[in-house]
């Protein structure tokens, strides 16, 4: 069993295979991985897979139940919503938004957080203190509340919701990166790199960063699912994607008043969120087991 540093830094052949070996020990993680793969395929192929356009309204077919229920038809496999739009098509297109949300939020939050964390880890003590204090301040606000207020002021839209969630999630990356950098920085290989004349940027990005990546990758997986949940929550509160966008949270908000008359318009979008988030969290657990031997089998 190798430690985290070797696992990510040494570019020996078969690294991927070794990773898969540990990853696949966790059966849940493998299931999560395949579900996530299916989710990505749905997101990518929504245009081909969906039978109708997500915004096309069949006015004479409003609130048709799913096909297995009385009154359902094979024309609309998962039924239609109050405006007669096909649920299946909307859900498939919704996968696209959720995937986009996860990707954008994680990219923005991790790039920002890693850079600031590296800076904090290498900078003089007072810069470090100021940065960490700012992160403490951001973390004092419940994340959803801060995102809500940010979006309220920037104006409700999917882009602003993603931006707000990215800002709120970013301190976690800063803390993780800084902690990892501080541990690595005092190790001999970093000292020898400095003695060998490696420049500061080289030491930051080439020497130290690759050895800090393991916990960050795990965090990225976990914040992918947090991002999907939070943006859906903002959509549900009317502060995220705006109708008629088939974003899952927004769909739930639109369907709320039909909760007791048509279970499928409420149940299905939420189920889609739950399955996606669950799959990603399962995968995250497996990633942690595979990349972070310290936490292994806990």
């Amino acid at each position, binding site marked *: 069993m190798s430690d985290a540093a070797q696992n990510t830094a040494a570019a020996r052949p078969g690294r991927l295979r070794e990773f898969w070996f540990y990853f696949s020990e966790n059966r849940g993680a493998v299931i999560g991985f395949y579900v996530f793969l299916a989710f990505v395929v749905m997101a990518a192929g929504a245009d081909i897979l969906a039978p109708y356009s997500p915004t096309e309204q069949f006015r004479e077919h409003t609130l048709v139940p799913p096909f297995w229920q009385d009154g359902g038809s094979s024309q609309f496999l998962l039924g239609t919503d109050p405006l007669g739009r096909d649920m299946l098509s909307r859900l498939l297109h919704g996968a696209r938004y959720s995937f986009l949300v996860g990707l954008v939020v994680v990219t923005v939050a991790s790039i920002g957080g890693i850079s600031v964390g590296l800076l904090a880890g290498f900078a003089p003590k007072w810069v470090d203190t100021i940065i960490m*204090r700012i992160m403490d301040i951001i973390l004092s606000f*419940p*994340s959803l509340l801060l995102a*809500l207020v940010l979006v309220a002021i920037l104006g409700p839209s999917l882009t602003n919701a993603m931006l707000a969630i990215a800002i709120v999630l970013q301190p976690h990356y800063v803390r993780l990166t800084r902690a990892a950098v501080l541990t690595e920085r005092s190790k001999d290989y970093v000292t020898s790199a400095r003695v060998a004349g490696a420049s500061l940027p080289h030491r930051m990005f080439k020497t130290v960063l690759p050895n800090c990546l393991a916990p960050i990758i795990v965090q990225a997986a976990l914040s992918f699912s947090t991002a999907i949940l939070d943006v859906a929550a903002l959509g549900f509160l009317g502060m995220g994607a705006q109708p008629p966008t088939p974003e899952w949270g927004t769909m739930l908000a639109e369907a709320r008043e039909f909760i007791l008359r048509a279970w499928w318009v*409420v149940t299905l979008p939420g189920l889609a*969120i739950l399955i996606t988030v669950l799959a990603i969290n399962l995968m995250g657990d497996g990633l942690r087991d595979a990349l972070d031997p310290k936490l292994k089998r806990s």
Partner: protein
Amino acid sequence: MLRYLLARLVTFLPTFIGVTLISFAFIRVLPGDPIIVMAGERGMSQERYDALQAELGFDRPILTQYWDYLGGVLQGDLGNSFVTKRPVWDEFFALFPATLELSICAMILAIALGLPAGVIAAVNRGKFFDRTLMSAALVGYSMPIFWWALLLIIVFSGNLGWTPVSGRIDLLYFFDDVTGFMLIDSALSGQEGAFRSAVRHLILPTIVLGTIPLAVIARQTRSAMLEVLSEDYIRTAKAKGLSPGRINGLHALRNALIPVITVIGLSVGTLLAGAILTETIFSWPGIGKWMVDSISRRDYPVVQGGLMMIALIVMLVNLTVDVLYGLINPKVRKQ
């Protein structure tokens, strides 16, 4: 210990000032003029605009404004709501008991179920029970709680008709606010059925709000227990011939509790964020719903004041947890 306490307080103060700075800056720095927003569609005359600007102090230099704001905060003055014209401070404390009551119930639920679940799972590690429980915990952890709330409403309020959909108590009952906690007040009122009505209103929101903390506590307890169970002193206890109940309950759980308590303390923020969604769905008249309503009404003084107060609560709880942690664990104090 005193030094540790002081060190914690020293980091608390700048964070507090930062929090006031952020909630102050939100209105003024970000785009959108709050006075124009207040006027709404009708618009307003230039004189009225100037008068309002002077009234709210927006015409003064930004530093003076912040200084006044900070002074007000320290004296419990957070300005008045644009909508109700009442002091934000008073509104906050009028609504806070509702949120507190709901949060306490959710936390009790989470601890009462999560702790035993985590212990049992750890003791039966790898067995069917452990796997089922941890799968359930992962589902709970991944749950979009706003959807979970709607599902529970469909089943328990819609199909079974067991629980009401919204509010804290039936409108039939009317009694004085003594503590602000509906459970206590309704019991004190002595009215037939009032307490039962309060309990029935509380059940679904409690479950919804408690779900994620419950899952987190169960997972954390399990992993902390597993770590402790592999320690030498547990083996010694076993070798001494102590009963498994005594080992698990007394020796292992007590030591496993330290990280669990930290997690419980840290989930206060989660709880307050969850309260925003839960209260909105169940029309629960607490600060979460108040914030959401104020945000959509663009009631900036409320948003600003509420944001600061909530952050302050989270900070105070974290500080308390840190201090308690230092009390329990001398190693922390030394750092």
